[in-house]
């Protein structure tokens, strides 16, 4: 008489515990931060994006240099210097972009 009663109590306990776990999981899902899904197809545009960034940086630097040259009449000087700076800036941006991708890959 006592044994089947005890068993029933045990299964009740178990199902209660399961219910508790499910409630906790649902609550966590509701409150927890949602991770932004990054798509792996982002890599498709990676190389293209880097080239654009490099070229754009060189061109922007070159333009500023050309403007300075135009103002001071020192034509190739600032164009070359700032073009070079633009190249460095482009490399820097590319490295930052690459780091961003690495971080994305890490979280994905």
């Amino acid at each position, binding site marked *: 008489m006592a044994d089947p009663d005890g068993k029933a*109590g045990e299964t*009740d306990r178990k199902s*209660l515990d399961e*219910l*508790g776990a499910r409630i906790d999981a*649902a*609550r966590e899902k*509701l409150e927890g931060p949602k991770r932004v899904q990054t798509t792996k197809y982002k890599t498709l545009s990676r190389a293209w994006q880097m080239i654009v960034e490099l070229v754009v940086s060189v061109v922007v630097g070159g333009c500023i240099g050309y403007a300075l040259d135009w103002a001071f009449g020192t034509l190739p000087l600032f164009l070359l210097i700032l073009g070079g700076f633009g190249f460095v800036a482009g490399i820097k941006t590319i490295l930052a972009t690459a780091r961003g991708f690495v971080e994305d890959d890490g979280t994905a």
Partner: protein
Amino acid sequence: MATENTSLAEGAADAAAHSSGGMPQLDFSTWASQIFWTALALFVLYKILNGSILPKISGALEDRHNAIADDLDKAAELKKQAEDAEAAHAAALASAKADANKIIAETQAEIDAELAAASAEAEAEIAARTAESEARIGEVRATAATNAKAIATDTAQAIIDKLAPGLADKSSIEAAVARALSASGVAK
């Protein structure tokens, strides 16, 4: 622009002439118009979205969030109730078990006591009966012994009278019978 280019050379030349290198994107005469209308479209879109659609979506999301949170609270509450009920049930079960054990022990003790009383009574009765029986047996034995003495005495008298009258008087015969009887263990 180069829409109906019948001759290729003409078409290419046409395209090159109208847009720089054939890319309409670099035809800067269209930029002002594009920028103006795009800006207007974006402004209209922003007004509509920010004015009514985005608040509606965020309201719906918030309502759902709250509803789910409420439901979860309710579920936790019900779970707690179930646990309480289970605990109450377990307590009731335990107390019932204790009660049952107590009753069993009490009954046992009662039965034991009754049994002891009954057996004591029975023993007393048996003892009484034994005593009674013994008394009767003793009586019977005494009677038997007396009778045996009388019979033996009478017999001995008769025998002596027959064989040798006057050999022994009544008292000596009695003494002899008593002696013989006590030797055979019939009487004390």
